[in-house]
């Protein structure tokens, strides 16, 4: 009975928020505009052309640093550009999910509905995942195209690591955006609180992305992915259990 009620409430909140987003385009427009600007800056700032001279200079630079391995310069740039773009654009989207509720005082009305605590968190988490996934579908191929990275040759591996990073990030981001919902400095405070918390997950995602790109045969992708998804489960479980207190404070 309780599980059915929770499922019904989650479905209702998600449908309501998607309808509102369809009408206002609030998250879509702000995230899209930010992503495009970010991508233009990165493309002009970090683009590495397939120039033999540049590759030779990069090899010399690595030799000077006493790095013997041959490293593709794109491998240095691509994972960073990819994850910075995802995280920064996602921050714009997730900041709105709870703020929309609070601006009209509706979070109070929602919090009064029996058993709505978990439903609110899971619904907002699903919405954040949907929003992030929607712009990743556009953003990731664009970055790959602009940086000339053949992501399709390892599509499954890229999909898995992006999914692992996105799930963990969305779980923590949903909690932090709820915590900051009453703060006037919300837009400043969310990144300040959130980014240090996701550093371990992001380091893992960067390492995995770089190794997928390099195609290192000794790299155990499956083990790394298992660890990343385990971190996701911990982040999600912690966020769900902590949300109860956050909601009490919001009320």
């Amino acid at each position, binding site marked *: 009975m309780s599980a059915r009620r929770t499922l019904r*409430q989650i479905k209702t909140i998600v449908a*309501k928020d998607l309808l509102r987003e369809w009408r206002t385009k609030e998250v879509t427009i702000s995230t899209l505009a930010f992503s495009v600007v970010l991508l233009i800056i990165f493309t002009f700032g970090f683009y590495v052309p397939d120039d033999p001279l540049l590759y030779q200079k990069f090899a010399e630079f690595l030799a000077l640093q006493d790095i013997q391995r041959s490293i593709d310069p794109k491998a240095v740039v691509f994972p960073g550009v990819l994850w910075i773009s995802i995280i920064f654009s996602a921050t714009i989207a997730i900041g709105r999910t709870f703020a929309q509720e609070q601006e009209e005082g509706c979070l109070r009305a929602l919090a*009064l509905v029996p058993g*709505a605590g978990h439903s609110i968190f899971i619904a907002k988490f699903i919405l954040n995942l949907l929003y992030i996934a929607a712009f990743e579908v556009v953003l990731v191929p664009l970055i790959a195209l602009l940086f000339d990275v053949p992501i399709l040759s390892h599509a499954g591996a890229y999909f898995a690591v992006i999914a692992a990073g996105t799930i963990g990030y969305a779980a923590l981001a949903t909690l932090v955006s709820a915590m900051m919902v009453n703060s006037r400095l919300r837009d400043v405070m969310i990144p300040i609180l959130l980014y240090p918390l996701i550093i371990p997950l992001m380091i893992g995602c960067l390492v995995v992305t770089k190794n997928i790109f390099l195609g290192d045969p000794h790299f155990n992708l499956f083990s790394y992915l298992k660890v990343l998804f385990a971190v996701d489960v911990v982040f999600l479980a912690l966020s769900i259990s902590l949300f109860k207190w956050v909601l009490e404070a919001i009320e």
Partner: protein
Amino acid sequence: MKTIRLENLSRVYGRSFALHRINTEFKSGELSVLLGHNGAGKTTLMNILATVDRPTSGKITYDKIPFAKFAKKHRNEIGWVSHDALLYNDLSGRENLVFFATMYGVDPKVVDEWLKRVDLEKASNDRVASYSRGMRQRISIARAMIQNPSIVLLDEPLTGLDPQSRKNMLKIFNKLKKEGKILIMITHDVSIGEEYFDRVLMLKAGKIVYDGKSTLTDIVTEFT
């Protein structure tokens, strides 16, 4: 008859008492009016009854059950019309009501009944953002009543209503009273006729200074 009983209820913010040793009770089938200046403690009392605030000391019971315990299990028994409309501006009046009805697990068919009762059938498909203050107030009351609560908390529900809507709203409250609900209403509108309420509580600096029945104008004149 169900009763909400308040015993020595106090709420302290910092060093000042928002409510100080309040002793009273609210019975089913009654509409109690809370009067008082700004800062008298009316909204604090309402927030405590709506379970969005907690008393610093004292006891509240509903039908002899501790109120917090009752509210934890039966929060849907509390209908709350607050200062804010608690509505989604980007949704229509009907969509708002259907949303809250579904959240409470109530058959969305009751939405039509409530739209009729608050006289918003024609504007039901317009977005709430386009509603006048009076219309927002009426749809907000329908939202609070959608789950058929037994305790109805009304924080200035008549503000912004035109005379006809105000009269209709008071008639609705009368009907809810007859259905055996506990109605508690904060108002600054002293022109409400005696036939619409059963009791008046005048609050001053967190204390009850009057508890009885008289015209609202007389009470306000005597205690201010």
